[in-house]
């Protein structure tokens, strides 16, 4: 990753370091290795790709606590209080603000047509769509949004995902997607537009709105997983990894809402996503 080292340190490292520090206890919390004499067990251990499962499960319980008492209630309140058209507008604005990252990654992956879509959408939605509130590029011109991020680009460039990680609030991830998440923040022009309380308030508002918007879009799917799965941790792990692979291959552009982030719940759980709600 040549540009990780050249990444300016303020936002990128500022958020990545705590996450990396969290990983230190991992060394002490490795999953029991499978019996090497049982090839099926070994094959499954490799396929599941979760060597630090006990640590991840601990992080998952932490997350479930936060989710139960903070994230989900806030998302439900947001849905109750804010009417649907406004929520759609918020989602569209967040998606529009992600344009620089999506565009950069379209290009880094050598996808000029998709890059053209992204740029065209940005120009149309920022103007005719009144600062991105209305997704007219999709509703009038039929150019639907798609999402890209640095984690996907690193994957297209041949970098493996590494061991599965579960990070509270961010959700399911892995070292590659986590690095991509950091790069996404570091490379976003909005991170660098200046300093001062006003800018910090804006970027903070945007981050908070992204979390709330994403969680709101996942109320039903996550409720279904928590209610129906015999092991929600394992279900989310499998769903995340499968869905991430589909996104990397661009086989299913309806997968993620346009405001989706590069890791964890932002790119969803794979179960009944809000497929068209981003363009209602």
């Amino acid at each position: 990753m040549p540009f990780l080292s050249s990444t300016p340190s303020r936002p990128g490292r500022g958020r990545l370091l705590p996450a990396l520090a969290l990983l230190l206890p991992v060394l002490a919390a490795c999953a029991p290795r499978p019996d090497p004499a049982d090839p099926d067990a070994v094959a499954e251990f490799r396929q599941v790709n979760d060597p630090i499962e006990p640590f991840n499960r601990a992080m998952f319980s932490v997350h479930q606590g936060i989710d139960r008492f903070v994230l989900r209630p806030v998302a439900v309140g947001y849905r109750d209080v804010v009417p649907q058209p406004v929520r759609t507008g918020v989602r569209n604005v967040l998606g529009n603000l992600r344009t620089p990252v999506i565009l950069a990654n379209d290009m880094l992956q050598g996808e000029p047509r998709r890059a053209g879509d992204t740029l065209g959408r940005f120009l149309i939605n920022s103007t005719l769509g009144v600062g991105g509130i209305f997704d007219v590029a999709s509703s009038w011109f039929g150019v639907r949004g798609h999402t890209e991020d640095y984690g996907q680009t690193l994957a297209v460039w041949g970098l493996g995902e590494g061991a599965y990680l579960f990070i509270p609030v961010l959700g399911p991830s892995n070292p590659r997607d986590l690095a991509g998440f950091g790069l996404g923040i570091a490379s976003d022009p909005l991170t660098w537009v200046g300093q001062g309380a006003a800018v910090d308030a804006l970027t903070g508002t945007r981050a908070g709105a992204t979390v709330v918007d994403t969680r709101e879009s996942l109320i039903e799917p996550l409720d279904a997983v928590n209610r129906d799965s015999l092991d929600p941790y394992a279900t989310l792990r499998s769903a995340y990894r499968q869905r991430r692979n589909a996104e990397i291959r661009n086989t299913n552009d309806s997968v993620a809402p346009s405001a989706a982030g590069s890791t964890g719940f932002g790119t969803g759980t794979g179960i009944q996503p809000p497929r068209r709600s981003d363009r209602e």
Partner: protein
Amino acid sequence: MTAFDRRLLLGVALGAPLAAAMPARAQQDIGRAASFIQATGQELVAAINDTRADAATRRQRVAAVLRRAVDIEGVGRFILGRWWRQASAAEQQEYMKLFEETLIRNLSARFGEYQGVRFSLGRSQQRTEDDVLVNTIIERPNSAPFALDWRVGDVNGQPKVVDVIAEGTSLRLTQRSEYSSVIQQNGGRVAALLDAMKRQIQQLAAREGGTR
């Protein structure tokens, strides 16, 4: 790499649970698979939307369609994966019974949710190795439509559903991960999974009663 090589590799990687079933499966015809899904989907939708019948009657109709259309034996064994051979004969038998019940109850517990559901074939039907992926769009009142891909295989000359894929996520893979994890978290005991499945069926049955 030929399809056979890939399949062999895949089989080895997944613990070869399907290896025994492979030779029986022949190439699937796209048109046949699509019309099979069309017919099966219409039957399911008709059963779900038949509000004159009570929930139990509707569940029985749905069960009959699923038993005919889904390769329950093959999918059930795939999902139990490497634990199938570690289970006793009695456990295998009970697992199959519970698996079928779970499949049916999962749908019948959602009769209320799926009231008024509509279903149509999507645009892209494609072949993957010996199977066909049939794309469908599921629409419900007051809810965003979503795409479901049905993987149709050939089991002893008959088209059968072998997997359902929602937005890039295969249900049988996710469920295998879930079941295997339950067994592992309980010291490798298949019986622990069977207990959990029984509890789940009870919960689903209670919800079916509530949604009528």
